[in-house]
């Protein structure tokens, strides 16, 4: 792999290297750890959601969608946080590997944002009769979906090794992430103008019976693991794409007169 874009420094031994060696060792175990762990957790979640969790009084079986809907929201927040950190690191270290991480995490984030919106719509339709209710959370989620799709769109206008486009996209991702609290706040205030009954009843924590809560936690853990696994997969795929492109460019250059 090409060396990171630092000015030449003498190698420093010490706690920083020990830490990166440890991280490297943990990372090397990912294919041994993530798939089985995720599998078990997902099974537990499915069993829990469909069988163990009690039937909700008002909404019935439909309410079980919550066990996917809520963890999906956490998943995309985690993914977008990773995009944010990776973007900052890209700007700071100028190492294109962080661009691969950012793109991988953004793809997964957009996926789970879409899933949150879809499950939200499916949950809402039978109850309200419409697919979209302008609920504050869903609306904020939709805006985030647009922002990070925009990020992927902007990034894709140039090839995977283009540093300048990578930097631009990183700046956009940073702005987007910093905008999240402001977006959520303003949309919530906007919705208070026309207060609506709460659709997603099952989300009220104090009212939730213990079994539901446990299953929900299991779901959170499962989806979180799934998210991490997807992000690792996508990041490595993006990284491979970068290396393929740079090899191709090198070959072209050699073949040019």
């Amino acid at each position, binding site marked *: 792999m090409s060396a990171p874009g630092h000015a030449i420094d003498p190698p420093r031994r010490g706690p920083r290297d020990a830490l990166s060696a440890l991280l490297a060792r943990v990372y090397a175990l990912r294919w041994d750890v993530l798939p089985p762990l995720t599998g078990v957790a997902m099974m537990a979640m499915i069993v829990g959601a469909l069988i163990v969790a009690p039937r909700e009084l008002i909404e019935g079986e439909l309410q079980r969608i919550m066990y996917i809907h809520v963890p999906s929201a956490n998943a995309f927040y985690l993914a977008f946080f990773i995009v944010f950190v990776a973007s900052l690191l890209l700007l700071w270290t100028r190492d294109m590997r962080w661009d691969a991480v950012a793109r991988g995490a953004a793809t997964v984030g957009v996926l789970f944002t879409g899933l949150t919106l879809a499950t939200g719509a499916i949950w809402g339709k039978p109850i309200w009769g419409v697919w979209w209710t302008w609920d504050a959370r869903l609306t904020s989620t939709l805006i985030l979906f647009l922002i990070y799709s925009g990020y992927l769109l902007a990034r894709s*206008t140039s090839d995977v090794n283009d540093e300048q486009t990578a930097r631009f996209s*990183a700046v956009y991702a940073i702005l987007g992430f910093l905008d999240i609290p402001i977006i959520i706040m303003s949309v919530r205030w906007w919705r208070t103008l026309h207060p609506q009954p709460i659709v997603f009843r099952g989300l009220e924590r104090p009212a939730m019976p213990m079994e539901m809560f446990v299953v929900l936690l299991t779901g959170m853990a499962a989806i979180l693991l799934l998210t991490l696994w997807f992000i690792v997969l996508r990041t490595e795929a993006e990284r491979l794409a970068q290396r393929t492109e740079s090899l191709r460019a090198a070959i072209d250059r050699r073949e040019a007169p």
Partner: protein
Amino acid sequence: MVGDVNAALAVVLKDLRLTWRDRAGWLSAASFAAISVLIYSFAFDLATSDVRPLLPGVLWVTFLFAGVIASGQSFQRESEQGTFDALLLAPVSPSVLYFGKVVSNLIALLVMEVALLLLATILFDTMLITAELVLIVVIGTIGYVSLTTLLSTMGSRLRSRTMLLPVLALPLLVPMLIAAVRATGASLGEPSGSAPWTLLLVVFALWSAAGAALLFPSVVER
């Protein structure tokens, strides 16, 4: 420090002179804005019904679209002529250049917006040139021009940048749009809830200006 102020001032004056010299771009944006207001009038029948509930929305959507397009165009010329590099060679930090660009875009946009407010005042028989409303327009415009100037700088390498710029900018600007519309409505006497909309506008303006100024040097590096 003095050199910085001088440089920023130079950029602002140069941009204003260029805007005047090359009026076509801004006039198109202004015409687009005026036509939008008319189109909305027909689409929402603003002539007959009580216009006040819809007016803030109509105005701000028009401001945003025209503003995004116009500030995108203004940077395009710099990049086409290669003069952006000449700016970067100046012995000032890039943030100073950014600040100058934002101020010149702001001035041009405010002129356009005030003209639109006049047009709307006449068309809809609603007094829109009030101190409160103009202040809201100024703060809101600062909020969005900081971001659109930054994003349009980024656009130089992106293909299909004219389409992409609104797509990227508008989702980020949603909070500002919500706040600006509600604050404008409140100043016209519309019920707008108890949320401190103007405060949100100010916060957004500060946030976007600071964030964009901090990130600008990273954007111009190559």
